[in-house]
């Protein structure tokens, strides 16, 4: 075998700018990164030169252009703090593209996107792909407060209709995005032309999944999990599905909501 779909590459920082509260957009030049990357896939970044912190951090591809890729991240710990200190020209070691991305069927005409907080990260790449496929897009986007709602103007410019909610009411509806979603989600007939894509906190994804399942609407959710390898070898990042524990890094991170078990306790223990 001479073709390796996953590559470990040394990327160069070409931009690392704040876009919100402790939130940055990292732009990396990586000419040897496989061009096959799809929306919803992710990369594993090394966030230290030594053994501590040791494990790589997983980030969905915020966007992927010819020879470059983007990551949207919030500083939450030592790994992301290290990332925020990178400057133009610095090297970052990354592995990718990893996992299964979103599936865009040729029959798709309308997409409902649901994002909570940093769950917006994989959507720019997805929106670009959906737009290229001529799909109409409506985005339900919720965050804690207005400042955490990112890239609104860019998404509107890309032809996305926005419905916003903040927990403190500083922008859009006051409350959680799932409430707004439920209000607007009218009875839709299951159709190959219609699909829901969601990314955000697990509670939000399970709620959106429940609503979609109730009406048998196609729905894909992108999950987050602590990962050691990102390559499918450690079995550390699993999620309960109808087929048992599956790897978020390999069978996911995008799963059909229909396959996720809402009650994880139902999986038998050894």
């Amino acid at each position: 075998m001479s073709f390796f779909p996953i590559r470990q590459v040394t990327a160069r920082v070409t931009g690392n700018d704040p876009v919100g509260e402790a939130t940055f957009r990292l732009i990396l030049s990586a000419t040897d990164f496989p061009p096959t990357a799809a929306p919803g896939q992710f990369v594993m970044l090394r966030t230290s030169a030594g053994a501590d912190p040791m494990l790589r951090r997983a980030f969905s591809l915020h966007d992927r252009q010819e020879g470059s890729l983007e990551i949207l991240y919030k500083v939450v710990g030592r790994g992301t703090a290290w990332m925020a200190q990178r400057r133009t020209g610095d090297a970052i070691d990354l592995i990718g593209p990893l996992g299964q991305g979103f599936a865009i069927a040729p029959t798709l005409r309308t997409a409902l996107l649901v994002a909570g907080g940093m769950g917006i990260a994989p959507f720019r790449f997805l929106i670009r792909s959906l737009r290229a496929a001529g799909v109409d897009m409506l985005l339900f986007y919720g965050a804690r407060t207005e400042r955490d709602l990112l890239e609104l103007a860019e998404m509107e410019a890309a032809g996305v209709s926005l419905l916003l909610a903040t927990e403190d009411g500083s922008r859009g509806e006051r409350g959680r995005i799932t409430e707004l979603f439920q209000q607007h989600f009218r009875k839709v007939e299951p159709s190959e032309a219609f699909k829901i894509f969601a990314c955000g906190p697990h509670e939000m994804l399970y709620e959106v999944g429940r609503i979609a399942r109730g009406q048998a609407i196609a729905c894909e959710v992108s999950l987050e999990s602590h990962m050691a390898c990102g390559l499918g070898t450690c079995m550390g990042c699993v999620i309960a599905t109808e087929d048992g524990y599956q790897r978020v890094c390999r069978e996911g991170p995008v799963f059909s909501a229909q396959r996720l078990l809402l009650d994880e306790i139902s999986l038998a223990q050894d």
Partner: protein
Amino acid sequence: MNVSKSAPELSVEIAGIRMKNPVLTASGTFGYGEEMAQIYDLSQLGALTVKGLSLRPQTGNRPPRICETPAGMLNSIGLQNIGVEAFVRDKLPFLRRIDTRVLANIYGHSAEEYAAVAGILDGADGVDGIELNISCPNVKKGGMAFGTDRAETGRVVRLARKATGLPLIVKLSPNVTDITEIARAAEGEGADALSLINTLLGMAVDIDRKKPRLSRGVGGLSGPAIRPVALRMVYQVSRVTELPVIGMGGIVCAEDAIAFLLVGASAVSVGTANFVDPLCPLEMITGIEAYLKEHGHTRVQELVGALEMEQV
């Protein structure tokens, strides 16, 4: 310092298994091989060891299963695997096509179950050796319970020995008072080689939630944090046994690997480092070769147990 002109001999023979170099990958960090084959050519490895196989498929433990710790990580996977029969049917055909040695790590709830799994692999084309996992800390029944008791170790090895003619490697637990006793028990019942160490039992706590960070509370510690412990145990064991030892525990680079060889390991296995730096086994092979040249050695075996100790 002599500088050798020709390329030094890297191949080693362990338990009758000829390997092209002394760098292996450790069970539980390498899936069934196919995952890592997406990132590099596995035929460059001395051998690879597949995820622990049991008689029947195992669900594994509830998440969270992993957490990062200083220079290491804890895991409590619970040996989630597809079962030995599905491995032979679905995974071995791919592994047979790769020009490297394949070691099957196996695990049972009883000594009889270990023997049953060993028996199934005995007739499987493509398995070069069996590694008995008597040291997993993350399952309720079996695993480490066997590897922390001399008599139990002896019984598991004896039954597995009867069930297979394949080379038998026994993977030892560090969670014992005296690892050399367990090593001798395995040797006495017909083990062909020993591998050590498995993970060290550990724990981490989330003080905000007042809960352990792993679902089962405790898990196995791996990574550079355990390297000095592993090195000491490989040193101790290789002094009391005639068997070849495969050293592992926090090895991340050629320098680490060489230290394990010097204290008595005949080969080394890379574990957690596969997660962090998947290509590091390849750099390790190159690094060992460069060290041999630099130090005037013609064969890697010359390093094995070559540690110079002050006599006291």
